[in-house]
């Protein structure tokens, strides 16, 4: 596997792991379910995501 492919794999993994890629999926989903409504901007999505995290605390282990 070439270096570029490795770099792409690492980038893909990090984006997935940190949840950065969630926005892309969110947009795709939004267009599917609400084709006429404008897609939220990354900023608006961040706010939604923060609100959700606020109400769903996830325990970190010992």
């Amino acid at each position, binding site marked *: *596997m070439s270096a570029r*492919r*490795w770099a*792409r*794999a690492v*980038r*893909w*993994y*990090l*984006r*997935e*792991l*940190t*949840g*950065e*890629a969630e*926005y*892309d*999926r*969110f947009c795709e*989903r939004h267009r599917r379910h609400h084709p006429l409504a404008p897609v939220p*901007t*990354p*900023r608006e*999505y*961040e*706010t939604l995501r*923060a609100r*959700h*995290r*606020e*109400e*769903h*605390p*996830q*325990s*970190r*282990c*010992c």
Partner: protein
Amino acid sequence: MPTSVMPESGLPAPEGPPSARSRMTPQSLLLWTSVALLGAIGWGVLALARGEEISAVWLVLAALGSYAIAYRFYSRFIARRVLKPDDRRATPAERLEDGVDFQPTDRRVLLGHHFAAIAGAGPLVGPVLAAQMGYLPGTLWIVAGVIFAGAVQDMVVLFLSMRRDGKSLGQMARDEIGRAGGAAALIAVFAIMIILLGVLALVVVNALAHSPWGTFSVAMTIPIALFMGFWLHRIRPGRVVETSLIGVALLLLAIVGGSWIQESSLADTFTLSPTTLVFCLIGYGFVASVLPVWMLLAPRDYLSTFMKIGTIALLAVGVVVAAPVLRAESVSDFASSGAGPVFAGALFPFLFITIACGALSGFHALVASGTTPKLIQKESQVRMIGYGAMLMESFVAIMALIAAATLEPGLYYAMNAPAGLLGTTAESASQAVAGLGFTITPDQLTQAAKAVEEQTLIARSGGAPTLAVGMSEIFSGVFGGSAMKAFWYHFAIMFEALFILTTVDAGTRVGRFMLQDMLGNVWKPIGRVNWKPGIWLCSGLVVAAWGYFLYTGATDPLGGINQLFPLFGIANQLLAAIALTVCTTVLVKSGRLRWAWVTGIPLAWVVAVTFTAGWQKIFSDDPRVGFFAQRARYADGIDAGQVLPPAKTLDDMHTVVTNSTVDGVLIALFMLLVTVVIANAAVVCVRAIRSPVPLPTTETPYVESQIDAPEQSAEPLAGARA
């Protein structure tokens, strides 16, 4: 629906019915025989090497070989025979997909998520303390425990929760066992979490006390996280990877900056006593848990994840490349005498209590029954995610044990025995260590502190400083030489403190929700998650509760870690007992009595361990072990007007009496709660066995999956094949 932007080459093939199994090919037979041989060589060297120093590589080999065999054979057995995951059945992630909570997630990504959620400071601290009994007993339990208990628990809980739309452990206990068992489980989970947070915070306090470098660099994580929060939320929304990389760079700078601070006039500002640090942490814990998550918790969580994976990988490379020599004894005298200074009590049960998380952690059951089951794409992946992630955690514990065992035993005891025993000077510590049967000269002790640029290493209990010294030895052997030792020491301290602060913040929030939920039954408004006074009150109560244990730990004349760590271990293992009880009950109820031993044997073991430990902590006549014997000894001393060392004043004597009473009562309470859960479960199991028809379980009905399950992926990083 595929979730990755990168095309996948494949998902693991469905496990399939047992009849479809093929015989092993000659290649795979050869491969697994070699793996077994390598593991056996590792164990052989460990077992036969006596009276000479051996390389840590053998330990790594033994562990990895055993993990590979266990994963390939035992976890597959559990999947095929006991759980029978069915990849034609839609997972909750598929059925209930909402793009938020439920979302089919690539298994490799989910493994990373799950590992980041379960791995913390526990497996780093426990094995370091357990090194008091030598490296061999600890290694044996970390490896055997994870294979037969810890990883099994995580995998089965994950599977059961997945089959119940991601229900929590508490809900499953109520649904499958009954109301009494469910309520007892809920209270136990809450109480156990409080102890856990208090003890983990104590580890941070002991690591940072009188260390301006450490205190500065850990304090800097707060502005760094705030900066990251604003960057991520306001300036570059959603750029998590970029923000985390900036954060890691700033973090490294903060570690370097700590050495400048130590040399500067600001050093005094950052030289804090344990008590001051306790109040800083309590205040910080409260503020952090009521601030919006995006400001502090979320960014620190990203930092913590990056550091966790990065440092653990680095440590694995360091151990293999530096191949340090194990200087600790394989089995020390303290294993049989039970008179060790780090924690009191004999090998059975206290070694198992002390190692806790690295082999079996009840806390994982909360993670495995929370977010992870809602993200699984295919049922058969519970094996890789549940069993696999726990094997990784166990490997972290092995590395922590190696780091501790590479230290000179004299230094190890000078760092880990209670302050009351060691005194405050290098001379007194040297004498005390000699009294324990080990040698370290006052000069060597001063030199060791100087090498990592700390004022002192005497009585730096709690595991973190010991691990940091061990890690600095290993890292400096590979990267940077002895000039970098101080940097690596503080890097390790920062890395542990970062984990713990994230755990404390997240744990306080989870505790607050649980408390709001419980109190909401009594008075409605307090249960509302958006009502600010309710949030503040409940956060305050949770912080006050763990803050109490933190304060008593930091001021305990007998040494907080020595007193509280067994409480932490017992609490954690009792939680595992609850989780394994739920698993066993469901297996029996669903007509799998024949396989109930898979979780039943670890359950019997953990009950034997925790109840023996709890019994001894309550009823032992030895004041070093039994809390009430200790209480009686000091209470008699007060009556006679005597001050018994290591207490220095009558106030100290009263402190000991109060603390040992609280600790003893708490252990009794935990045991009572777990007894209720187990007794209730036993009734349900008997009823299930006698019933001619299977008792109803709460498994959600079968729905056919619409997601394809392509062929088994051959490459580990198949995502790269774009």
